[in-house]
């Protein structure tokens, strides 16, 4: 019984992830794509739980859903013209784009299906403590570099999104 339920929930997460990703790509309205992306992130977080990555599942929900998705929805509101949201969202070369995409899909699925995977099945265990130790020993330097990167991105984003009016040498009204 529990087995069946677990399988059902697993397939539910798989279907949520892929189905909402399809909506993200093919929806005609940007805002629908943004909300479908929410379900994709939740689906991936659920798959992380099935993969015994508890800390990552929590981070996925907190950072992606709480941070990145909020940013993206802000971006949609600030840039899309609300009354023109129903215009076609695809460029002209969409059928041309299918060619390399389908090629990559075929190659990846073929490799996935035919490769001789050496799989080791281990028991799931809590990961947070071990991940913390790993981040402060093996991955200490990338960890510090990542914090500097975040600081630089923070300052850069603030600098970029401020009005240009302080730059006296660049006339602003010219292209508006």
């Amino acid at each position: 019984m529990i087995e069946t339920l677990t399988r059902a929930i697993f397939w539910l997460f798989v279907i949520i992830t892929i189905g909402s990703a399809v909506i993200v790509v093919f929806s005609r309205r940007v805002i629908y794509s943004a909300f479908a992306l929410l379900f994709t992130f939740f689906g991936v977080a659920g798959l992380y739980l099935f993969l015994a990555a508890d800390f990552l599942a929590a981070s996925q929900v907190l950072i992606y859903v709480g941070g990145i998705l909020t940013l993206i929805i802000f971006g949609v509101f600030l840039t899309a013209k609300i009354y023109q949201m129903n215009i076609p969202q695809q460029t002209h070369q969409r059928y041309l784009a299918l060619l390399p995409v389908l090629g990559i899909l075929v190659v990846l699925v073929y490799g996935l299906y035919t490769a001789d995977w050496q799989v080791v099945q281990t028991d799931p265990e809590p990961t947070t403590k071990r991940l913390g130790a790993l981040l402060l020993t093996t991955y200490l330097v990338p960890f510090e570099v990542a914090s500097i990167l975040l600081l630089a991105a923070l300052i850069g984003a603030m600098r970029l999104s401020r009005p240009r009016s302080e730059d006296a040498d660049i006339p602003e009204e010219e292209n508006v």
Partner: protein
Amino acid sequence: MFSDFQIYLGVGVALFVLGLLCVMTRKNAVSVLMGVELILNSAALNFVVFSRYTAGNLLGQAAAIFVIILAAAEAAVALAIFLNIYRIFATAEVDRADQLRG
């Protein structure tokens, strides 16, 4: 037919391909950013899958954490750039913002 391992990797493949299609075909810059997020998610998912199916090894999960960090930084900077593009060109469509001289 497929093992669990291959199903997880298949989800990763699907997310990657859909993200690639999104990046290549969408007009709106925010949609392109969503495609990039899909691709980054598929990469992180792959890292976690390989971490789960090797013996007692969390290196993949640590790599996934760095992927999430990069995604956050990238989203913030990209949206700042989009706001600037919108202010200058009055559109957020990537194929109409074709002027280098801001």
